[in-house]
């Protein structure tokens, strides 16, 4: 008497539970085989108007420990920047990343046979990029990462996938600063220790350097009138300017050259060659990515030539 309803309850519950388990098991086996079989057609699910990337099938990459790890895990971990609108930006409300670098990262993952929903983006600040790649915290790093000879000793780079240079962001109503030649006596802000602020210190001694830990704080100070200009890679500045075009503008031409590359663990030549090939062969994809992100500001840019060093 007592047992009947209880038994019914139990059996119906366990039935449902079993169904869930079966589904989960199916999904998991599906995932396990996904790196060779299809099933990755859901790529670009949350990518908005950005191009959906065709996930490569039957990727065979011998001699790449990073790729072996990605294949074994079924996921790829990519280090990105969370605070650079237009390039790598984390929307705190939705938890979604967007921007040019994010699309490049998604494209690179797709070329390795990893669908967009199997990418784990990690916010890694500039200072710990090399450590994160060396320790294996991330498999790739795509976040305004300039290729330099010194960094090449610590990590490998695929690309460059974008070329920019140090530029200047000023208030919309500012008429004094038209290029880097007008910086004497001005307060110029950039992130603490960043290459642009070191350049200002060394080559523009008449300007007053101001350093905050984040670019966004510099932009805030610029809007308040506490500093006269914000300097960093022009691509980053264009991102800020496109957010508030009624308050901010980018002036002058880039006065340095920065080559953005995809960072990967040192010595993984097979993976680097693969990514370089993807970049070289995928010119149309690159253009689509650019047009859907940074290109919205109206600028037209050609894809830079890949440097297979």
């Amino acid at each position: 008497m007592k047992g009947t309803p209880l038994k019914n309850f139990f059996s119906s519950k366990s039935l449902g539970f079993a169904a869930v388990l079966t589904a989960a098991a199916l999904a998991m086996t599906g995932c396990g085989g996904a790196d060779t079989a299809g099933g990755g057609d859901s790529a670009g699910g949350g990518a908005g108007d950005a191009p959906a990337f065709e996930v490569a099938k039957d990727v065979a990459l011998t001699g790449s420990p990073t790729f072996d790890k990605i294949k074994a895990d079924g996921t790829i971990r990519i280090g990105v920047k969370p605070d650079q609108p237009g390039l790598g930006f984390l929307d705190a409300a939705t938890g979604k990343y967007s921007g040019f670098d994010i699309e490049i990262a998604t494209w690179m993952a797709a070329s390795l046979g990893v669908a967009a929903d199997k990418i784990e983006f990690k916010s890694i600040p500039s200072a710990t990029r090399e450590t994160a790649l060396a320790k294996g915290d991330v498999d790739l790093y795509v976040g305004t990462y300039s290729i330099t000879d010194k960094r090449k000793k610590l990590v490998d780079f695929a690309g460059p996938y974008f070329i920019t240079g140090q530029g200047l962001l000023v208030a919309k109503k500012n008429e004094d600063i038209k290029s880097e030649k007008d910086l004497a006596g001005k307060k110029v802000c950039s992130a603490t220790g960043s290459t642009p602020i070191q350049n200002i210190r060394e080559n523009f001694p008449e300007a007053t350097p101001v350093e905050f830990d984040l670019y966004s704080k510099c932009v805030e100070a610029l809007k308040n009138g506490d500093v006269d200009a914000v300097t960093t890679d022009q691509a980053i500045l264009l991102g800020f300017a496109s957010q508030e075009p009624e308050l901010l503008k980018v002036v002058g031409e880039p006065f340095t050259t920065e080559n953005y590359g995809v960072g990967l663990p040192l010595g993984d030549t097979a993976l680097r060659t693969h990514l370089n090939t993807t970049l070289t062969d995928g010119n149309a994809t690159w253009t689509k990515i650019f047009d859907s992100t940074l290109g919205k500001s109206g600028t037209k840019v050609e894809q830079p030539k890949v440097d297979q060093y």
Partner: protein
Amino acid sequence: MNVLIDNSDLFLTGFKNTGILFVISAFFALILGTIVAGMRVSPAPAMRAAGTLYVNAVRNTPLTLILAFFALGYPKLGLPSIDFMTAAIVGLSLYTATYVCEAIRSGINTVSVGQSEAARAIGLPFMQTLTLIVLPQAFRSVVPPLFSVFIALLKNTTVAAGFSVFESGAIRAYLSERGEPLLPGLLWVALIFVVMVLGVLTPLQSYLEKKWRVAR
């Protein structure tokens, strides 16, 4: 070793500024802290209230917030503009003074009531009782906690790196932009801090403790 030698300019400038921040802030914090401690034990209720309010308000505010105010909020007040270094010194001094005050006040509490009663009995007013009788005795008993406060101040100076002061806390960011490996750089910064504490502050503390030892 290479990281240190190749970037000696960074380390030299960084630690020079850390030293400046520390020495000047410690000086002002000691003076201000002593004054506030005197206020907190004074017979005038208004003085006591002002001292208590200051200590509780500033001591319970995160240092980052105080420095942020002086670096970002102060310029909007329309007062004479100060550079970021001065702003950091003002913020660090005001913050550390509250801890100095409480350390000294605990020392004042160790001085027996008979001492100030005797001072009053021979006709000394409050100021003289405090400066001639109570504080000299109080200082000798607060050397260890006072040095804890100063060691904390030395480490706290690194917070100023977030507010446009190039000191030891900013070295890491510079190193990583120069493409130097992160860990050796951080280890050198940590090592120099250990040297400053163990090589300078701790010997000074034991010297003062010995010099001011009270036979009990």
